[in-house]
């Protein structure tokens, strides 16, 4: 931590602490993949990849690369004992049916009520692609987003209303950023943790939102 912000690795490390033992989890491609480096060693967390696997292990090293064994980002991965394979129909049924405890995603923007924008910048000349983004957004008991709170230009990515095309409505439960952790919901965003010497007023100024502080709610993803 440098002063009042976390590095991406620190965000991932902090988020990893909130993943309960026994969780079935999907890590979106890109930034969220970092979380897998920080999973607490005393917890057993089972990774889902939407291209048809539960029990995914770490990225494959030279000598263990198998072209038939890849993750959703098309990176070669490994298989842990107790793994299973299934087809895309079953894999997305698993997600859509709410069986995953947790999904971690990146975002372009998140609204204070949990709308997510992470699939398109809306630029007219862009090649469109959505992949599993919209399925992941609605496909877990809890959806966590990790991102830097502001763009490089200093504009807040936590907003009142998304201006980018949305991926899902009201689907994000928690937001982990370099400056703070938020809970999102129908009543808006609440700050549950401030990074370093970050103040609520700084966050209010950056986001333009009437943020308040509150203790995080108990995790409600895992049921027996």
């Amino acid at each position, binding site marked *: 931590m440098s002063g009042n912000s976390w590095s991406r690795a620190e965000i991932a490390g902090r988020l990893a602490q909130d993943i309960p*033992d*026994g969780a*079935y989890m999907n890590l979106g491609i890109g930034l969220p993949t970092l979380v897998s480096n920080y999973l607490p060693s005393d917890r*057993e967390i*089972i990774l*889902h990849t939407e291209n048809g696997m*539960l*029990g995914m292990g770490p990225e494959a090293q030279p000598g263990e690369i198998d072209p038939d064994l890849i993750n959703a980002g098309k990176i070669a991965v490994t*298989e842990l*004992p*107790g*793994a*299973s*394979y*299934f087809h895309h129909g079953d894999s*997305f*049924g*698993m*997600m*859509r*049916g*709410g*069986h*995953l405890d947790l999904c971690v995603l990146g975002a372009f923007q998140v609204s204070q009520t949990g709308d997510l924008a992470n699939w398109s910048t809306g630029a007219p000349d862009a090649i469109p692609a959505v992949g599993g983004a919209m399925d992941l957004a*609605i*496909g877990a008991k809890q959806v966590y987003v990790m991102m830097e709170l502001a763009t490089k230009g200093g504009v807040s990515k936590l907003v009142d209303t998304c201006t980018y095309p949305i991926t899902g409505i009201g689907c994000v439960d928690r937001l982990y950023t370099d400056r703070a952790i938020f809970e999102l919901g129908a009543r808006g965003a609440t700050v549950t943790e401030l990074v370093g010497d970050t103040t609520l007023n700084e966050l209010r100024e950056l986001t333009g939102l009437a943020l308040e502080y509150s203790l995080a709610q108990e995790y409600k993803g895992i*049921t*027996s």
Partner: protein
Amino acid sequence: MISKTSASAASALADIPDGATIMIGGFGLAGQPVQLIDALLEQGAANLTVVSNNAGNGHSGLAALLGAKRVQKIICSFPRQTDSHIFDALYRAGEIELELVPQGNLAERIRAAGAGIGAFFTPTGFGTSLAEGKETRTINGRDYVLEHPIAADFALISAYRADRLGNLTYRKTSRNFGPIMASAAATTVVQVDRIVELGELDPEAVITPGIFVNRVVETGDRFEREEWADVG
């Protein structure tokens, strides 16, 4: 370390409340979770809604649960069998509610609950009395009925092998409703012959991934039971 193993059928079912909706696997006797049904009878929960293909055979298992007046409603496709005496008597006496569903619609409604589908158009039953009052639609010249998911609080199913993560394999036609019911219940309890070491099940041949399973009870080798004397 995750372990979904329950010490006994009794402990695996201890928290089933009165009024629960319970799926019970099996097609006839194949795949019927006999030990779990016996434990449910012992446990005492009442006013249950049961989702199962049949409505009990003879006087044991699901039939005994019906006979003990624990079931207020049953959702099934084929209650009438040569030995469904207990259901028949309750039904004639108006003491049990029946929702009769064509078998494939029953399966697809269970599957829809597990897969997060809000409703679906099926051709089965169109124009019949079982579709009366239901929304219909013609799509590309074919007639369909709109059917909704069936979810449950608990699923009680039988499988062949499990590991501590709840990954399951089945055996022959006893697979039947197990995989879809496991996906459609908030809590899935499975009886299996044997719980094997992690890694012993071939990941390509796991039929129900452990994500759908909450509790596993080991009930011993089926081949040692009397009715299995014939199997080589």
